[in-house]
């Protein structure tokens, strides 16, 4: 009887362990229209992980397939809209983006892989969205675009798409980028909200596990603006704010110092990954 009982206990414990405990990212390689995309690479020095991994590896097979061909990628519609905006004259100076920058395929190649950069005028890091606004107000005589309005996401997606496949690399030696990086790191590891979660709680400590039906990735930003199956084209600061809302914290404003520091730090965490804009995620 006792032996039976022990066997029963052993069986129960075996069953308890047999479920999918850890859901590792998949072993798959990505080519977009035949162009190889780096989805796994060695982490830069001082990184908490040994290997940085694109969020693409954490998605379902069907979602991953959509990104393999640009014609299948719904985010490309936004990129086309962005191209229209690029060529549209606005403002008092009678200029469009193309007036100064000509063909984006050449002038914007690599740009999406190197932002955010140091902006000496505002003494802050500047991202693509704010750089667009700077050009609009200082050179085109047009009004700055409000967050996620007036085609801001589409134009950003178009500019970043020109760097498709190029590795993300930030220059932290410019200006005070290093101290903003430190500030961003603080934001990343600070627990906030009623749920008391930091970015790291999900994207570092629990990376690879499931949070209900959602597979937690490293939270890389190499594919932003991204096409999300639930909300369409989604900008980075929209995603930051969404994540922060989910911790039930007060959301910082888009492009606030807090989120610009976070963008600097999180972009660095994806050093070496290819730009995937517009990536396809769930």
């Amino acid at each position, binding site marked *: 009887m006792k032996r039976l009982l022990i066997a029963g206990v052993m069986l129960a414990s075996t069953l308890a362990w047999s479920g999918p405990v850890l859901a590792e990212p998949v072993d798959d390689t990505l080519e977009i229209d035949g162009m190889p995309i780096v989805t796994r690479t060695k982490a830069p020095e001082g990184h908490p992980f040994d290997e940085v991994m694109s969020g693409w590896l954490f998605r379902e097979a069907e979602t991953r397939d959509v990104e393999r*061909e*640009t*014609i*299948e990628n719904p985010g*490309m*519609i936004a990129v*086309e*809209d962005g*191209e*229209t905006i690029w060529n549209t004259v606005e403002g008092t100076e009678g200029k469009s983006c193309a007036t100064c920058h000509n063909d984006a395929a050449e002038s914007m190649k690599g740009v999406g892989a190197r932002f955010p950069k140091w902006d000496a005028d505002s003494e802050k890091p500047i991202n693509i969205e704010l750089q667009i606004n700077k050009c609009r107000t200082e050179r085109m005589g047009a009004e700055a675009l409000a967050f996620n309005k007036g085609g801001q996401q589409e134009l950003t997606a178009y500019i970043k798409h020109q760097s498709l496949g190029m590795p993300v690399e930030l220059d932290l030696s410019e200006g005070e980028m290093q101290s903003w990086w430190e500030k961003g790191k603080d934001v990343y590891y600070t627990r906030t909200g009623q749920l008391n979660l930091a970015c790291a709680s999900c994207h570092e400590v629990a990376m690879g596990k499931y949070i209900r039906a959602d597979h937690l990735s490293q939270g890389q930003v190499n594919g932003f603006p991204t096409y999300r199956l639930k909300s369409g084209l989604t900008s980075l600061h929209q995603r930051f704010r969404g994540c922060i809302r989910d911790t039930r914290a007060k959301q910082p404003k888009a492009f606030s110092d807090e989120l610009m520091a976070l963008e600097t730090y999180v972009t660095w965490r994806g050093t070496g990954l290819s730009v995937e804009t517009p990536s396809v995620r769930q």
Partner: protein
Amino acid sequence: MASKPRIKVPKSASAGEVITIKTLISHEMESGQRKDKDGNPIPRQIINKFTCTFEGQLVFECDLDPAISANPYFEFNAKVPASGTFQFTWLDDDGSVYEAEAPIEVK
């Protein structure tokens, strides 16, 4: 309104092979059923016909109606007898014609 259409045709194929062709054009496909803020109907403007020919020979043709959603996407198969060029045409209600072509080499 519509920007340049996107097409995907393999660069090469073997003789008689069945290939897959994909096309997509950005277009509002305004159905004519909707009203603007002031309650006035928004006039219909859709792409009403799509045609694909190979060296003058019809491969695929399709009439589009107002129920078709924005950015119409077509995927179809074709058998290629020899090297040549696929020609694609989209007809807009306003009389515009959008065209694209893609060559294929048969080895």
